[in-house]
């Protein structure tokens, strides 16, 4: 297992650091060829002219590779387009979500930002093809016309929830991704070709994201201040799982909203109703505890406020399709 910590905003530097983490030589080119000890494939960085950093991956690694990106001061966003072939033995993990299905193709786009920590686990011997586009808040404002910080926050906060930030890659996306590998050989023009394909990928993602946000909001607009208050509600909600969560009435006082408005606006921002969200986060917490191998099922159940272990096991199975015992065993 290789753990690779990232706080890079420059993909060429990342490439060089990744090379040393994998203990393979790097000559300072735009690409890194994996040697048999590390895996098979290539990782490539594109130099564009538009403040965009782009990395292409077409590889499989010999060891499990965990990349962890931590929060930092300077705010930036990364758009990931991942096409992964998952086999029986391998599980692909993004943040706290594990893609459980076996023998399947996992092809999704998602947006992450360094507002939150995030980790990605690429299991050994899994073939992964991705395109990663890193851009600054400034880029987002300039090109997508999201002018105030609060507005950016409001629109993309919703991304924190799973239902939202994951977009299936259809034929159109895959075609665009593929085209980045097959650049026209006409030297002076390949840059414009690449840049256009990259911006088309982004356009498609953001257009569809916007459609989804509209669908969810149903023409229901929140002020930035209201969003800030919802963030407080969310923080309090997932702060402590050992006792029962605050009631809706308490939350509605905290957020200075009627309970109807609170419920509706929480769902529009976080994609789930308050208690469904609570329950999901609670199970995620349980999973973390179990995976740390420090607690057994009964202790975990107690830690997240279940008096009855079998209720916990049932709830856990409902969310993850595996029992807590299996998580410990693996």
């Amino acid at each position, binding site marked *: 297992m290789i753990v690779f910590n990232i706080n890079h905003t420059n993909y060429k530097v990342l490439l060089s650091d990744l090379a040393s983490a994998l203990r393979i030589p790097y000559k300072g080119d735009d690409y890194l060829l994996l040697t048999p000890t590390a895996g098979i494939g290539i990782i490539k960085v594109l130099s564009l*002219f538009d403040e965009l950093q782009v990395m292409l991956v077409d590889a499989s690694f010999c060891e499990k590779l965990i990349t962890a990106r931590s929060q930092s001061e300077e705010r930036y966003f990364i758009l990931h387009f991942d096409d992964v072939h998952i086999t029986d033995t391998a599980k692909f993990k993004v943040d706290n979500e594990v893609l459980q299905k076996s023998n399947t193709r996992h092809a999704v786009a998602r947006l992450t930002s360094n507002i939150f920590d995030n980790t990605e686990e690429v299991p050994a011997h899994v073939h992964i093809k991705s395109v990663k586009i890193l851009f600054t808040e400034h880029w987002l404002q300039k090109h*997508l*016309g999201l002018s105030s910080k609060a507005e950016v926050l409001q629109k993309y906060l919703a991304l924190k929830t799973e239902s939202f930030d994951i977009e299936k890659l259809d034929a159109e996306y895959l075609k665009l991704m593929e085209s980045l590998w097959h650049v026209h050989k006409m030297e*002076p023009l390949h840059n*414009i070709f690449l840049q256009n394909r990259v*911006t*088309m990928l982004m*356009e498609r993602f*953001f257009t569809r994201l916007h459609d989804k946000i509209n669908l969810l909001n149903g023409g229901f607009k929140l002020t930035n201040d209201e969003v800030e208050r919802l963030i407080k509600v969310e923080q309090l909600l997932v702060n402590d799982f050992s006792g029962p969560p605050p009631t809706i009435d308490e939350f509605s006082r905290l957020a200075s909203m009627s309970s109807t408005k609170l419920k509706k606006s929480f769902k529009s921002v976080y994609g789930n109703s308050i208690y469904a969200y609570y329950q999901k986060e609670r199970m995620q917490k349980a999973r973390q505890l179990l995976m740390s191998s420090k607690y057994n099922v009964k202790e975990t159940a107690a830690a997240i406020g279940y008096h009855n272990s079998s209720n916990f096991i049932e709830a856990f199975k409902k969310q993850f399709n595996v029992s807590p015992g299996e998580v410990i065993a693996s």
Partner: protein
Amino acid sequence: MFNFSYKYCDHVAYLHQLAAFIGVPLNENVLHLPPEFGSGYIKVIELPNGLQVLINDCVLHQDVCIRREESDGTEYTLRFDEVRNMKALTLKMGELILEEDNQVYSGAFLTSSFPSLEYTTTAGAESRCVNIYFTEEWFNTHLGLSRTDDLLTKYLSLNTATFNFEVLNIEYRQLMEEIFSLKEGHPIYKNVLQNRVMLLIENFLISLYNRLTVSGKEITHVENEIKRMMQVESVLVRNLSVAPPAIPHLARLSMMSETKLKALFKKVYHYAPYEYYQKNRMLKAKYLLNTKHYTIKEVGVQLGFKNLSNFTVAFKKEFGILPSDV
């Protein structure tokens, strides 16, 4: 006769001069033509990456002559024009003259600030155009072309109308269609517009590059024949809901043998005539589905498919996805 002459400047300045000349106010760089001149609009949009795009969609009520004087400087305009229903159209670029009397002109060309440019057409003309303004500096920094001046000056020094005026093929058409149907309310309007504009530039440059590097082999057909191909093309895609005109009919129209027509069409538009027709039809289908105003069945019927499953199959063949996945 509307006669306007100006010095080379960027699109925003041009639009201001034009508005002052006509005597109408500008509202956020949009000019609505008053009835005595025509109907429709001319607007300029400044894109995030520094390009200026002038878009017009109008019908002229007067004969028009717009003349740009020659000047120094290293500014360029890439023009994409689609003009229909005119009695005549003349484009003069320096010494170079293109005259069109086919009722339809659709072409792309690049001009620099150096040669003068004159554009004349008649009342009744329906004009849609996308003009992209950029400086040499923009070109070098945004496209990273170290040998740009080469490419551009080479192009501009080639004084043959056949070479300089490129026909608008299906890719250009589609991009223009997307630009004209783009709603200003689109959440990332400028970004979408910018991407289409960049794709227009890309297509133009790639085609230019290809022609320059394989020149000699390519430019064999005479100017006149290209004009006739434009006419054939416009007849071919005029109505996508009925069967396309028969090849013998197109051959008569272009005064060529069927064999020659097919070969030349393929050379100019990169597809055989029916293939081209079908591609246009499918692009139209995709566009209609994307508007979300029509069901799959309605789109199929609009495009002349009697059998819906034929439509689905054709669509899948073209785009690799089903109409229902759009």
